[in-house]
């Protein structure tokens, strides 16, 4: 039976997140491996929790994706979702470390 996790984008940051459901309480993690996976018969509870997070303005556009178990964690079943989970497959352009200071300063502020 296919296993699924729920994913969405965080409203404030726009970043990819995955739903963890513990004792009925939802939280969102950037790590797909830490997401709560359920089979077809139970995935409705993930959907309900994701929609609540959407109403609470934590996330945007939740949807379910198929996952497979790999080395004890979840891995997205499709290439699109694998890239979405792990980020661009290319090296991002970057300046040398010293020139990231403005960005770093902002993060610290």
């Amino acid at each position: 039976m296919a296993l699924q996790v729920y994913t969405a984008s965080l409203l404030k940051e726009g970043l990819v997140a995955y739903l963890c459901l513990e004792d009925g309480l939802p939280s969102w993690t950037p790590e797909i491996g830490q997401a709560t996976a359920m089979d077809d018969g139970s995935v409705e509870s993930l959907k309900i929790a994701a929609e609540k997070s959407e109403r609470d303005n934590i996330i945007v556009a939740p949807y379910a994706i198929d996952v497979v178990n790999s080395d004890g964690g979840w891995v997205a079943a499709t290439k699109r979702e694998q890239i979405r989970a792990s980020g661009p497959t290319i090296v991002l352009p970057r300046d040398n470390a010293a020139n990231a200071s403005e960005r770093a300063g902002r993060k610290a502020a």
Partner: protein
Amino acid sequence: MYQYSEQDHQLLLERVEQFRGQVQRRLKGQLSEDEFKQQRLRNGLYLQLHAYMLRVAIPYGLLSAEQMRTLAHIARKYDKGYGHFSTRQNIQYNWPQLEDVPDILDDLAAVEMHAIQTSGNCIRNTTSDPLAGVARDELEDPRPYCELIRQWSTFHPEFNFLPRKFKIAVSGAIHDRAAVAVHDIGLRLVNNAENETGFEIYVGGGLGRTPMIGKLIRDFLPKEDMLTYLEAILRVYNQLGRRDNLYKARIKILVHETGEDEFRALVEEEWQKIKATGLHLREQDIDRIKAFFVDPEYDDLPDTDREFENQILSNPDFARWADKNIELHKQSGYRVVYLSLKSAHQPPGDVTADQMDAIADLADKYSLSQIRTTHRQNLVLSDVKLQDLHALWLELKKLDLATPNYNHMTDIISCPGLDFCALATARSIPISQEITNRFDDYDFVNDLGDLSINISGCINACGHHHVANIGILGVNKKGTEVYQLTLGGSAREDASIGKIIGPAFEADQIVDAVSDVLTVYLDKREDPEETFLTTYRRIGQPPFKEKLYG
């Protein structure tokens, strides 16, 4: 370049504050995502595969050095230290946070920039020739007309909810460097038999899943009628364009289904109604805008320079770069310089914040403080003195912006593809990088001559693969990325849509397939001067098919 009026400034600031309020209400939950989505898209803000993406307009691809520094500042402060120049001469940031976007727009407004109408079903940024105003083959500078279109189309109430997005390009030269034929409306400045200058009007060009070359619906339109005629076209489209089917909503489908002659008649009929009472451009209206684009005071210089010639003779690397990345300028003693954003080290069109700052400094030092962006995702310094070329080259080399490949095979257009785009079905940047690395041999690339390769990561064709000599389209086939090859496209004055050569190739086969195509070309060309496109049009697909599929 155009300088904002007090009213322009006020308009932008009010828009920023309006969007700031919308963002705050969204973050507090007072606006739903459905309600907010239309607002953010009107301000160029998408939600992409990994994060928000902000698209900033660069009207007709013209930037001041000060504006470039602000783009660098935004990349550094609010993003991951880089930006991506797109085929619409805009810049995109891939990682902004929602709450920062109003501040970004504020910073942009301070230098007369914005993200208005860079998304949504409205008239988008008008694009143009990156050599506008300096090209030797130019009849008239198209930028004043682009600016008039910009002012007319910005917040135009009648055209704010079109059936689909709408793209206009204007060119004033013999050679088309703005891909005029693949725009919803393309305008070309031409002379008529009486030697008056006006426009040829093309309508219904476009790429995407149904690529089409624009149809010439008027072979001469007086300049003063430009806005009323555009208005007539858009009115016909607004009334008759399909809103029931996203894939049939572009004007190219309307023109195709209505028929060229019938569509022309509809436009002419509408135009007759509004021609006398609409926005007729008086000569002084055009002259007022032209005043922002007058030639700078060029130095009186000879068109040869002994020192330059010596540097060419003594330095093969410099000679190669000068041969590929320099274009003649209308002014004696000056040259146009292409800054290649297609090195082997960065995705096509990407520029880091440090590079942006350095480019701004170089523009100040060598090119009258202006930079242009090109639809092939490169940059241009348009007014460089012949005597400064060597010094400029040395600085560009340090910045990795001097790859000698302009309009050659490693000057690849690539959309962001599945590495960034929520719509993409396959990756495009890694394929472009693999091609660039495989063919990182100046002599080979030089021998191939004028040749374009464009790559799209889905059928929406943001990488313009249909109009490349060699086009690559990534698609998803049963969970695997595969790549279709199209041959024979052109985005220039001889515009054509490439044809699919056969079944798609796996990701690990596509670069070999490109190599095979090049082998056939080299084998079949009649002489080294015969371009790939000429050879292809002469011999057709069979020899390529035979090599690729046996």
